């Protein structure tokens, strides 16, 4: 009986707090994305042909580790019984990815860059296969920022 009460308390805590946290996070992501809109990101390997030389190349990166809340774990567990799309985890991954890209852009801005090329995204679940352990996902974004050497 006690177990069931604990389960429902955790479930509702995860639902209420987790959802509020996610909403705030998305709000903050959208705000910062607007701020860094002038920094362009490309997955293209080569620099654009109309690039004005000389430029400095700097490796910029951003990473974030996000934990799954209790409600999402339960929702995904139930979903795995019938299969299909797990919306709870999709938003989690989206948050992590956008946050990592934003942090990379923040670093690029510190160097005064307007352009990042060859952007790569890497996802890792760092605590795989552990029970009773934090379930979290890491997203790491990196790329080459091109900074015009003449402006400085």
């Amino acid at each position: 009986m006690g177990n069931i009460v604990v389960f429902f308390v955790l479930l509702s805590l995860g639902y209420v707090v987790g959802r509020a946290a996610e909403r705030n996070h998305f709000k903050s992501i959208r705000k910062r994305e607007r701020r860094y809109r002038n920094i362009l990101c490309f997955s293209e390997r080569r620099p654009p042909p109309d690039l004005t030389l000389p430029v400095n190349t700097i490796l910029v990166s951003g990473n974030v580790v996000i934990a799954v809340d209790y409600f999402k774990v339960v929702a995904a567990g139930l979903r795995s019984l019938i299969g299909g799309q797990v919306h709870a985890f999709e938003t989690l991954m989206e948050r992590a990815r956008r946050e990592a890209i934003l942090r990379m852009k923040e670093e690029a801005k510190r160097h005064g860059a307007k352009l990042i090329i060859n952007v790569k995204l890497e996802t890792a679940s760092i605590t795989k296969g552990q029970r009773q352990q934090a379930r979290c996902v890491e997203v790491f974004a990196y790329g080459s920022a091109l900074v015009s050497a003449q402006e400085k």
Partner: protein
Amino acid sequence: MLISNIEIIPGKKIVKHLGMVQGNTVRTKHVGRDLMAGFKNIFGGELKGYTELLNDAREEATRRMTEQARAIGANAVLNVRFSTSSIAAGAAELFVYGTAVVLEP
């Protein structure tokens, strides 16, 4: 030492290829951080401790790679890739590799 994940640096010429260099580190988290992470698993959200830990670990791996490149006389590492793998429960390996070259301005 220039480190970049593109193969061609605009305005610079590669005069010598020196082969692949690499750096790695295996890190594990400590109990205090893990306890906090346990709480976070109820509410969700970012695990700042882990973010920092992995960031530091990547810097360390990059530093090792840079040392290796410097030892063989390179002044740049190009086409750098990062890779992460969880090798055992609670331990993650951060691996970074690239091509050591001599660049001429």
